[in-house]
């Protein structure tokens, strides 16, 4: 394939339907995520933000629809291809999802050991580099997840997600549960890593500050469908939920803070 990689979307979803029993969560979603952008995904509780993320990374099988990630159809890949595809993205789960029986450094090493044939020494070095890049102190590497604060857990989870230098990063509410300063610092970290590593970021969030600070485009899940646009355009959207979301007191405060 000699097509320009920048032209094909990193994630391309067509007519996606998700349902649990009789409850329909997604009813025909179309979504394209462009290379190098940060896409923020918002929606009310229960609107299926996390389900969408889980569906894209293959943790949830959709009822219908087609998903292409990094140019590959996610359905119908055999195990080896799927594993190769999986090593090209990183996922940060809501509470870090670190392996509790392993130290932070060992957590970061898991994908390196599993998917590469680097020498143990280089793995040690890269692990320390990743831990430093996400802004953790060097001694955090020897600690167990239960010894870390919430913010440090998320940073450690991010280090693990970045271990294989993925092209695509999925973040599930990365700033939820962090104090505003910690959340701001985390936003900044994601932005700077995104720029220096050339990542495409799929960011599920509730945090209006994150949205206005780091997202290039925003996807809103309403009425089981999705609406994608830039923040400015969404501000003029007539849909009542979107109006309420961006024009409510919190939305105004976040935009105000950004404008300053």
């Amino acid at each position, binding site marked *: 394939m000699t097509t320009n990689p920048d032209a094909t979307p990193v994630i391309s979803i067509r007519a996606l339907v998700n349902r649990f029993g009789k409850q329909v969560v997604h009813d025909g979603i179309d979504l394209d995520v462009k290379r190098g952008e940060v896409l923020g995904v918002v929606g009310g509780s229960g609107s299926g933000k996390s389900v969408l993320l889980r569906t894209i990374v293959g943790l949830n099988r959709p009822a219908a629809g087609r998903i292409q990630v990094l140019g590959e159809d996610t359905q119908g890949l055999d195990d080896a291809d799927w594993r190769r595809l999986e090593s090209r993205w990183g996922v940060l789960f809501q509470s870090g999802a670190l392996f*509790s*029986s392993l130290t932070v450094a060992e957590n970061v090493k898991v994908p390196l050991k599993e998917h*590469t044939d680097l020498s143990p020494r*280089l793995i040690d070095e890269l692990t320390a580099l990743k831990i*430093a890049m996400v802004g953790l102190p060097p001694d955090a590497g020897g600690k167990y*997840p239960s010894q870390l604060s919430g913010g440090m857990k998320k940073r450690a989870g991010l280090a693990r997600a970045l271990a*294989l*230098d993925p092209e695509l990063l999925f973040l599930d509410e990365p700033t939820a549960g962090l104090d505003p300063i910690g959340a701001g610092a985390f936003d900044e970290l994601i932005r700077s*890593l995104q720029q220096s590593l050339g990542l495409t970021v799929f960011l599920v969030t509730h945090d209006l500050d994150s949205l206005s600070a780091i997202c290039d485009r925003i996807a809103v899940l309403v009425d089981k469908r999705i609406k994608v646009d830039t923040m400015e355009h969404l501000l003029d959207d007539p849909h009542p939920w979107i109006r309420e979301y961006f024009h409510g007191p919190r939305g105004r405060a976040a935009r105000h803070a950004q404008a300053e």
Partner: protein
Amino acid sequence: MAENGASFEAKQADGELVIALRGRWTIGLVAAVNSQAAALRPGGARRARFDLTAVEAIDSAGAWVISRTRAALQAAGLDVTIEGGGPAQEALLDKVLAAGLPPPAERHPHHYFIHIVERIGAALIGFFKQGRDLLSFFGAVTIAFLRLFRQPRRIKFVAFIAHIEQTGLNALPIIGLISFLIGVVLAYQGADQLRRFGAQIFTVNLVGVSVLREMGILLTSIIVAGRTGSAFTAQIGTMQVNEEIDAMRTLGLDPLDMLVLPRVMALVVALPLLAFYSDILALTGGGIAAVFLLGMTPTQFITQLNHAVTLNHFLVGISKAPVFAMLISIVGCFEGLRVTGSAESVGRLTTQSVVEGLFLVIVFDAMFSILFSFLHI
């Protein structure tokens, strides 16, 4: 799409070392060039220049190898520049350089012998601490139990009944099957030996006495320790991980009342019943073996059993049941409450709970034997 692996060429001219990089310096491909880069020596040069013009792609692993090589050359006293990279590559290199060289991984020097002694010592101290904590937990449970008489409203009746169902009723099939088979085996093996003395009929005594005094209760306790003790630890431990027990405390609920006492009381009720059931099934197994394999008539078996065993035998066995039930349930709950934070600790303490429960059951059984022999029961 041909993948060009990472490679570089180092040339020296006019005291300047030019390192020309080629190909894709990415995580999957950088391993090939890593040791070569580590072996790079200044070789008399005073300056060094990394030329990235021919690099196709770079990620943080590649940037790391470059940045480490750069640091090594700088440490050797060279003036190092990096040029020819695009803006994105430079941003990445800056990022990696800013993260700095991580300190080398620490290796703890330890003396092997001292390490062994230290571990033995720690295990011994841990054992005694564990014993002390268990004893104090037993005390706390006893006090909580006695408090129930003053404040009967604290009794969680629904939980109590539910646990009787889970620990007692649901265990009937497995305990029944195992007891029955052990009864068959005992009768068959006993008869095989006793036949040599022509004392085959005493098989019935062997089965009757051993089942009623020891086998019935011991088998039941072992199964229950594996089945219920582990379940108690895992249930309470998982609640501990989810902070449910902390939530309980903040709501003014005592975990001893809510979780521990219903389980302990349920097992104290259920285990004697299970032991009785096990006695019956094991005797039935022995009887069937005697009839079908050894050729006794059912009447013979029952008459002989009637001669062989007394009510005392049965009472000796069954009187141990409440004690074993307390040991198993208290150890199970105690280990569950010791869980901290991680899933790994739930697993470890569940194992420990079963091992400790079994250990205590066997130790107490031995002590009962000694006690009963002193009392001539």
